[in-house]
């Protein structure tokens, strides 16, 4: 497993893709974090018709902005993770990879671990980005940056864990759907369109709420313990699973896609 993991890490960092996607992620997160932090910072002075704040303030505002990494950022580790597999099939390097290591389970295992490493790197980058972009705005114009509050530290720490999980889900999914274009279309379509709608419906229709909890994005929010999405949808996180439940759901996604990858896709001939 050691040599296989070493090979996967080398594959990952020997092309430009990993830092191009990281760069896009950082730019995107920085922009959204800045805009959201500014709008929350300046909105806290206004109140709704009955004197209740319409938007989160104080440490809630800070946690909301810092947890942006999840709904906005998670597509990046997911995409990059999937490319650990799809790039090999696209460029036919899978042939060479299986020639030096014919045991396909070892290949899959090494890629999953490399995916976790990738997710940790992206997670640290994402956390650093939202903090650097949002904290000054919240601190100067808002209710404070709350950088040392336990809620903030918890969100930031768990973000890194969640990113590692997203990346591993991406690896396993890419091992199942090895066509790069198909994998990208499904990932972008699901994360940007299907899941947000499904969660919105789940938050409106009570009978669907228990189902919506098990969507991967909802599970990831459960791990973070807060959600940029639910803070605006009027929720308080009540629709979410407990943290351990969220973690288990994310791991279940990894396990299911990894099993499909191993027993459906990787069983096939490589021609």
């Amino acid at each position, binding site marked *: 497993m050691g040599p296989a993991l070493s090979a996967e890490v080398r594959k990952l960092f020997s092309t430009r893709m990993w830092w191009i996607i990281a760069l896009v992620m950082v730019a995107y997160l920085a922009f959204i974090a800045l805009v959201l932090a500014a709008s929350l910072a300046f909105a806290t002075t206004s109140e709704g018709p009955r004197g209740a704040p319409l938007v989160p303030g104080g440490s809630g505002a800070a946690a909301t902005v810092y947890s942006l990494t999840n709904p906005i950022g998670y597509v990046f580790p997911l995409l990059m993770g999937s490319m650990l597999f799809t790039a090999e099939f696209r460029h036919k390097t899978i042939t060479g990879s299986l020639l030096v290591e*014919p045991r396909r389970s070892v290949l899959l295992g090494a890629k999953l671990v490399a995916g976790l490493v990738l997710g940790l790197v992206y997670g640290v980058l994402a956390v650093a980005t939202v903090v650097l972009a949002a904290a000054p705005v919240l601190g100067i114009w808002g209710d404070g940056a709350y950088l040392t509050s336990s809620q903030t530290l918890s969100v930031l720490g768990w973000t890194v864990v969640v990113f590692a999980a997203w990346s591993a889900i991406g690896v396993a999914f890419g091992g199942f759907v090895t066509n790069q274009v198909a994998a990208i279309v499904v990932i972008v379509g699901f994360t940007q369109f299907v899941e947000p709608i499904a969660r919105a419906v789940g938050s409106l229709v009570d009978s669907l709420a228990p189902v919506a909890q098990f969507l991967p994005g909802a599970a990831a929010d459960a791990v973070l313990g807060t959600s940029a999405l639910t803070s605006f949808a009027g929720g308080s996180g009540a629709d979410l699973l407990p943290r351990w439940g969220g973690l288990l759901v994310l791991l279940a996604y990894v396990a299911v896609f990894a099993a499909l990858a191993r027993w459906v896709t990787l069983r096939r001939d490589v021609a």
Partner: protein
Amino acid sequence: MASRGIVVDGLTKRFGSVTAVDDLGFEVAAGRVTGFLGPNGSGKTTTLRMLLGLVEPTAGTATFDGTRYVDLPRPAQHVGSALEASSFHPGRTGLGHLRTLAPQVGVDDARCHEVLELVGLSEAAGRRVLGYSMGMRQRLGLATALLGDPDVIVLDEPANGLDPQGIVWLRALLRGFAERGRTVLVSSHVLAEVQSTVDDVVIIAGGRLVHASSLAGLEDLAERLVVVRSPTPERVEAEAARHGWSVSTDGASTLVRGATGPQVGSALFSAGVELHQLTDRSVELEEVFLRLTSPEPAPGQGAAMGEVA
């Protein structure tokens, strides 16, 4: 060096109703270069992929000294292979490509540089494969195959895209391996490409074995024809008859079949026959290869094709 031969036995692969490889059996000896020949679509690549554990055979086995490729520990140290010149990530450098494989091959960076040097790619080591020519990709593929310093080398169409100098260089390299006791299996769809490199030939067509022998064995299948011009054709015919060679005439020349140019020349010289021309027109090996691998005639065309076959 303890080298391993390759044994292919009853190897069969069906894709749905199509039988790509049909009960194929042959052996590849150590210390020799074996050409694995067949037209495009004859099942060469599928056979090599089964040999290397990438494609699961429907039936049969392919083993290296009795062990399947997938059961070899650190297989790249025993069997080095290059299957397609296009299977590189275009955004990776030549060195970067080798380094992604090195941990599992079990070699260090120094060895990566060494094989790049060996195939003449040292200068291009830091350039992305995107900018490599077809010939450079072939060389990088060869470097990949050699990375683990293997006893057995399997190359699919290695001469494709190489310039004439490259082919000469490849020939010397492969001959060198065979002379050191290693096993070399090289596929090609053009006999002429490997004719001066190989010791043995395995020829397949339509997924079946049609011929396996030494190169000399293949040459024996070639028809020998010598064209002679002489002011005394009747004396040429008499000499040929004495040696048991068949003769015919095309008007100006006498055609002698069943002998080589030197044999005919020597016989006529000893007999003191005056010659104006002597040309060895033996059928090229390529024609033998084409004849062996041409599709079998359909039942209705038997009469028309019969003379050729």
